């Protein structure tokens, strides 16, 4: 791939500047080079020969994007900034290599004390994304070839992965529907309790759940960092595992996994022979947990919850998948609960997967606005549909001393269903 291949998309940006009013990164950094218009013009400059793509300055600016798609939503020309960012990162990864894990852990983690401290508290998260259990229970191995030697053994995560806690088939009497649950890494390794809540709520509402054992990472973490070959491999594996299942729907409970299965695989696997139909079938079948539940309706009665809850729109759930109404509808339907809308519920929380590891300070200041908004809302419970957002918002509230719980939509509902206090 040549840089010039991006020109067709790049010149569609008329440089109007509308992206300035919505970009969370620009809001913090203020420099024109950090907003969509600037990044697009830097790619244009590479094509023109004015900027060296091999330079650190260019690569750094291409990394300053949360992929939150706010600019795309406000761009009347319909410039696909996320596709441009991915293409640029892919090109950089091809040209310069991508020692991701090394870069994240050694260069950023160890160099930055605050990040290192966080790394300790988030250790299991990070491992979950990039490590897999080694045979014989001796530790963890890198899940993906992301810069670490694949044979290098590192310390194990504490949590027992979700998929080892539940049976592969959760049956119910007279099921109304049968679904497959794509757990994703965060739920499997870091927040198994979300997975348990998903299964619990579905079960109570007469939905049987199949949890395919051989599912893998959806590929988003590597995809957004430009490692396309690995992402293709993971996407193919996911499609192979899920596309042919005889179920009414494939459920995701992570905004990013859902976006990958429903939207991104089509482009990612466009050149893979024999995959087009399977990708389309999977995309059509995949539904977010909240979306699916709102659609089939709740049949089981809730005990209720005394809480004041608000909702944070995950970028990948709200913008990529268009799921905004359904989670609110479910939350507001909990007896005894008061729902309060945030001022800017759809503004990115700053997590953006590995972005928050690579640019921890920046992701923190973006998150501060979210935390302020939460504090001003008077809610004691923040609900969202993305485990990554949960982790980041929790961290932010903790650091800023803002009290309150952060729950996944499924966890809130599971609580409302719990029989005794």
């Amino acid at each position, binding site marked *: 791939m040549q840089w010039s291949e991006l*020109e*067709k998309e790049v*010149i*569609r940006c*008329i*440089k*109007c*500047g*509308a992206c*300035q*009013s919505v970009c969370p990164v620009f809001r913090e950094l*203020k*420099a*024109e*080079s950090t907003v969509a*218009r*600037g990044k697009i*013009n*830097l790619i244009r*400059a590479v094509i*023109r020969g*004015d*900027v060296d793509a091999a*330079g650190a*300055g*260019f690569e750094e*600016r291409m990394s300053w994007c949360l992929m939150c798609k706010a600019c795309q939503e406000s*761009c*009347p*020309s*319909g410039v696909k900034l996320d596709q441009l960012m991915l293409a640029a990162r892919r090109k950089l990864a091809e040209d310069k290599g991508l020692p991701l894990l090394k870069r994240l852990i050694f260069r950023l983690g160890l160099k930055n004390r605050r990040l290192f401290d966080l790394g300790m508290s988030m250790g299991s998260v990070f491992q979950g994304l990039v490590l897999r259990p080694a045979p014989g229970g001796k530790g963890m191995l890198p899940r993906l070839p992301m810069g670490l030697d694949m044979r290098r053994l590192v310390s194990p995560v504490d949590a027992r992965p979700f998929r080892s806690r539940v049976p592969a088939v959760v049956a119910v009497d007279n099921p109304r529907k049968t679904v497959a649950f794509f757990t994703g890494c965060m739920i499997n390794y870091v927040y198994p309790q979300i997975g348990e809540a998903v299964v619990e709520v579905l079960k109570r509402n007469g939905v049987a759940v199949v949890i395919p054992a051989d599912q893998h990472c959806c590929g988003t973490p590597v995809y957004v960092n430009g490692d396309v070959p690995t992402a293709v491999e993971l996407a193919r594996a996911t499609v192979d595992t899920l596309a042919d299942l005889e179920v009414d729907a494939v459920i995701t409970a992570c905004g990013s996994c859902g976006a990958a299965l429903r939207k991104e695989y089509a482009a990612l696997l466009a050149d893979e022979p024999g995959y087009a139909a399977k990708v389309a079938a999977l995309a059509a079948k995949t539904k977010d947990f909240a979306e699916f539940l709102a659609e089939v309706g709740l049949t089981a009665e809730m005990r209720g919850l005394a809480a004041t809850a608000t909702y944070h729109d995950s970028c990948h759930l709200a913008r990529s998948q268009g799921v905004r109404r359904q989670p609110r509808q479910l939350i507001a339907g909990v007896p005894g609960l008061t729902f309060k809308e945030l001022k800017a519920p759809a503004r990115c929380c700053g997590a953006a997967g590995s972005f928050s590891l690579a640019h921890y300070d920046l992701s923190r200041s973006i998150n501060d606005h979210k935390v302020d908004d939460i504090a001003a809302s008077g809610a004691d419970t923040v609900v969202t549909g993305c485990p990554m957002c949960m982790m980041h918002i929790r961290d932010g509230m903790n650091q800023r001393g803002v009290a309150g719980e952060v729950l996944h939509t499924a966890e809130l509902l599971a609580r409302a269903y719990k029989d005794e206090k």
Partner: protein
Amino acid sequence: MEQAVVAAVKGIVGAEHVLEKYEDRYCYTYDASAVTAGKEGMPALVVYPGSAAEVSALLKLANEHRFPVIPRGAGSNVSGGSIPCAGALVMVLTRLNKIVAIDRKNMVAEVEAGVITADFQTEVEKLGLFYPPDPASKAFSTMGGNVAECAGGPRGAKYGVTRDYVLGLEVVLPTGEIIKTGARTMKCVAGYDLTRLMTGSEGTLGVVTKAIVKLLPLPEAKKTMLAIFDDVEKAAETVAQVFMAGVIPTTLELLDNIYIRNIEAAVNIGLPVEAEAVLLIEVDGDAAVLDKQVGIIARICREQGATEVKVAKDAKEADELWVARRSAFAAVSRVRPTIIGEDCTVPRDKIPEMVRTIRAIADKYNIIIAVLGHAGDGNLHATILTDERDKEEMARVEKAAEEIFAATLAVDGTLTGEHGIGLVKKKYLPLELGEGGMLAMRAIKKALDPNNILNPELV
């Protein structure tokens, strides 16, 4: 720029408010116009001053060391007016972002240059007041930039442009003096009208750091309507007829079929994609008289041949139409990647003739020109849809633009109603001003900016 000068600049604004990296500076070689300075016009530094005093100190330094200074707001201007020349210092004024005061009793407000226009409007509207200028870029453009470019907008038909609301300014002159122009009063004839001189001076005569603006009472209500035509000339004819009937609409926007189709593709709200043209009309004011005004306008539209006149039934429908209109300019970039928006303005009764001329010119040069206009004030945005990579076509575009300018001046129009001259139309300005006019302007520039520091390439 010498290291000592760079150090001095950092001493003035603080190192954290200076951008030095190549990639960062490169992103200030363009604005929202179709021109760009590229590598050849790289600024030496980009700085974000935090006060008029810092702006003053920077300009004094510039005079001492003779480097050019390019003031800039959000860079959303479409004239090429904030594009630097090599070695310049780009001065971004977005840190000056305070609404200093909103004086409800006297209906004036004082704002710093970097305040976002739409944010300011929201604040005054909370108090039942109204700041009418509404450039399409208002969600991100700055008040200082609006003053410097004398920005217009769709509401111009009834309410005029930025100039009509600026009572006074704080301006840093090119040599560094901080001056105040005008007053906080509705009337002021003390000395030359420097406020008007500075408003629309495109960053060549001074750096606007603060503005005192006039406010109006927020109109009680408004009604928005869409008149659909099967012929663009019928729509154009209707414009003058509406005013002649004694109704002054807030807005009277003309959109041709190319715009209609592409806006619909962008926002999908059910615009009539088969229509040759639509007029988007809004009236505002006392709720009791709006229905009467809508009735008169609807009657005239039908008499002039409108196939349908629709009145938005609620605020949501009206909002949708406005979202559609605001996305127009960028939406047509779906047709061809490069868009060049002209903003020739003609007397209202010459609009049909001008629309005809623009279409003939498009045919002659075999290029696509979409037409949209704040037709209510004669401001036509002939929008050339092209591809900057096609050199041969770009040559035809250039010729077509020249013919449009000549035709505009031939019917007593002006080269620009609201975008400004900038780098984009610099070479055509003598056509409108004549030799004497140019001399007068250059004399003013020379008097205020003897060393030609401020935005020197523009004059």
